[in-house]
C-alpha cells in the first residue's frame, strides 16, 4: 500500500518533468495545430528539414568539436594534477576543494565581466576567438571532472600501488601511466561524458565571449526565434534532447559495466 503511494509520487514528478519535452515532441510531429484539441495531422517533415539544414549540422559539429577539445585539455591537465596532489601534496588538496566551491559559486555572468576586461586587448586578445572557450570550459568543467577523478583515485590505494610498482623497478611515471590511468579510466570517462553534456548546453559564455561568429547548438536555437515555424524549433529541441539522451545514456552504460566487474 505504502509502496504504491511512493510509486505515484515519483510518477507524478517524472510526468511533470517530462511534460515540456512530450509536448514539444507532439508539436514537432504535427502539421498544424491551432485552437483544436488534437493536432490536425502528423508528419516528419520538420525533422527532414533539420537534417538538411547545413547551419544546424554545422552548429552540432562545432559544439562537439569545442567540447571534445576542451575535455581533452581537461583530461591531460587534471588527471596528473589530481594524482600529484593526492600522492605528494595533501595540503594543496584542500585548496583544490576550495576551488571547486569557488567555481560553483561564481556565476558565468560574473566571470564574463572580468574575462572581457582582461582579454579584449593586447597582449592577450582572446575574446572573440575560440581559444578563450577552451579556458573557460576548463574552469566550468573543473568541479565535475575533479570530483570524478578524485572519487576514482580514492577507490584505489594509490600509495601502495605506486610503491609496489617502484619496488618492482618501475618509476612513478610508468606506474602512473600503466597502473593508475587504466584503473581510473572508466570512472573518468563517465564523468567526462556527463560534463560533455553540460558543456554542450553552454550559452552565456559562448554568446558573450565569442559571439555570433561561432555558432554552437544553443546559439543556433537562439538565433531561429523569428522566421522559422514553431514546429521547426520544437523539432530542434527534440533533437537536442536526443543528443543529451545519447550522451547521458552512454555514461550510464559505461558506469554500469564498471560496477558489474
Amino acid at each position: 500500500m505504502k509502496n504504491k503511494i511512493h510509486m505515484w509520487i515519483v510518477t507524478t514528478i517524472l510526468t511533470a518533468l517530462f511534460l515540456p519535452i512530450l509536448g514539444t515532441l507532439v508539436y514537432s510531429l504535427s502539421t498544424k495545430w491551432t485552437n483544436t484539441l488534437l493536432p490536425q495531422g502528423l508528419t516528419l517533415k520538420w525533422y527532414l528539414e533539420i537534417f538538411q539544414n547545413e547551419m544546424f549540422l554545422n552548429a552540432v559539429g562545432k559544439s562537439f568539436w569545442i567540447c571534445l577539445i576542451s575535455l581533452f585539455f581537461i583530461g591531460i591537465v587534471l588527471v596528473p594534477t589530481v594524482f600529484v596532489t593526492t600522492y605528494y601534496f595533501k595540503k594543496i588538496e584542500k585548496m583544490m576543494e576550495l576551488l571547486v566551491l569557488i567555481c560553483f559559486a561564481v556565476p558565468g555572468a560574473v566571470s564574463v565581466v572580468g574575462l572581457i576586461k582582461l582579454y579584449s586587448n593586447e597582449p592577450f586578445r582572446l575574446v572573440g576567438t575560440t581559444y578563450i572557450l577552451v579556458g573557460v570550459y576548463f574552469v566550468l568543467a573543473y568541479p565535475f571532472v575533479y570530483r570524478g577523478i578524485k572519487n576514482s583515485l580514492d577507490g584505489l590505494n594509490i600509495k601502495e600501488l605506486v610503491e609496489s610498482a617502484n619496488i618492482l623497478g618501475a618509476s612513478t611515471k610508468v606506474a602512473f601511466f600503466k597502473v593508475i590511468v587504466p584503473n581510473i579510466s572508466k570512472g573518468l570517462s563517465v564523468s567526462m561524458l556527463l560534463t560533455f553534456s553540460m558543456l554542450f548546453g553552454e550559452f552565456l559564455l559562448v554568446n558573450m565571449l565569442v559571439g555570433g561568429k561561432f555558432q554552437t547548438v544553443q546559439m543556433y536555437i537562439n538565433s531561429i526565434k523569428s522566421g522559422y515555424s514553431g514546429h521547426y524549433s520544437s523539432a530542434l529541441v527534440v533533437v537536442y534532447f536526443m543528443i543529451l539522451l545519447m550522451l547521458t545514456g552512454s555514461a550510464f552504460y559505461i558506469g554500469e559495466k564498471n560496477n558489474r566487474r
Partner: protein
Amino acid sequence: MENILKLEKSKKISIPKRGLKEHEKGFLILIPFIILIGMFLISPFISVFIGSFLNEFNEITLENYEYILKSKFIKQSIFNSIELAVVSTFMGLLISLQGAYSLNRLKNSSKKNILLFINMLSNFSGIPLAFAFIILLGSNGVMTILLKNIGLIDGFDVYSKTGLMLMYIYFQLPLGLLLLYPVFDRVDPQWQEMVNIMGGSTFTFWKRVGIPVMLKEILGTMLIMFANAMGAYACTLALTNGTYNVMTIRITSYIAGEVAYEPGIASAMSIILGGILIFVVIINEVMLKKKRGKYEK
C-alpha cells in the same frame, strides 16, 4: 595497521633523496593547472573586484556602488533575482525531498532507470528549455490549448513572473533530486520503527531524527540550488526576451554594450552578486554550527 604504518615510516627513511626529487618534479606537473585556473578563474575575479572601484578615468572611487544604491532599476533586478532564487529553491527543495524519499522506497530495478532520466533532465536547460516551455505553455501552447478546450483555464501567460517561476522550479527539481537521493541512505528505516515503538509519530521522527541527520546535505543542496538560480541566464533571456529584470541579464547588458557600456557598474553588480552568494554560504555554515551544537549537548 600499525605494521603498515611502521613499514611506511621505514620506507620514507630509506629513500629520502629520491622522494625530494620526485616532489619537485611533481610540482612541475601542477604548473599548467595553476596557469589555467589563474588565467580563467582567479584573475578575472580580481579584475572584477578592482574594476568595481574604478571610474571611466581609472580613478579609485565608490561611484559605481553609489550608482547602484540610487538606481531603482538595478535594485529591482537584485530583488527579482533573490525572489526567484529563494522561492524556486524552497519549492524545489520541498518537492525533491519528498521525491527523493519516495524514490528511495522503490524497487532497485526501476530506480536506476529513473535516475538516468533525471540525470538527463538536469542538463536540459538554457535556450531549449525556454523553447519547450513556450511550446507547452505559450499563448498557443500545447497545454494551454488543451486546458482551454477543456475549459479549465482562460489562458496562461508564460512570459510573466509566474511562467518564469515555474521554469525555475522545473530546472531546480532534477538537481535537488540528484543531490538528495543518496542522502536518505543515512537514515536507517529501523530508526523510524524505534521512534514509533517509543510512542513518537512519524512527524516526530522526521523532526527529531530524520531531518537533523541529513541537515548538512540538505543545507548544502539548498546552497547549490540558490546559486544555480541566481546565476541562471540563458533560459531567462530566451523566455522573456530579456525584459524581465534580473541581475545576470543586467550585468551582461552593461558589458555587451547594446544599451550602455559601463564596465564599472557591471563589475560592482558582479561583486554584489558574488557577495550575496558568499553571504548565503556563511549563513549556511553558521546554521550548521548552531544545530550541531544543539544536538551534541
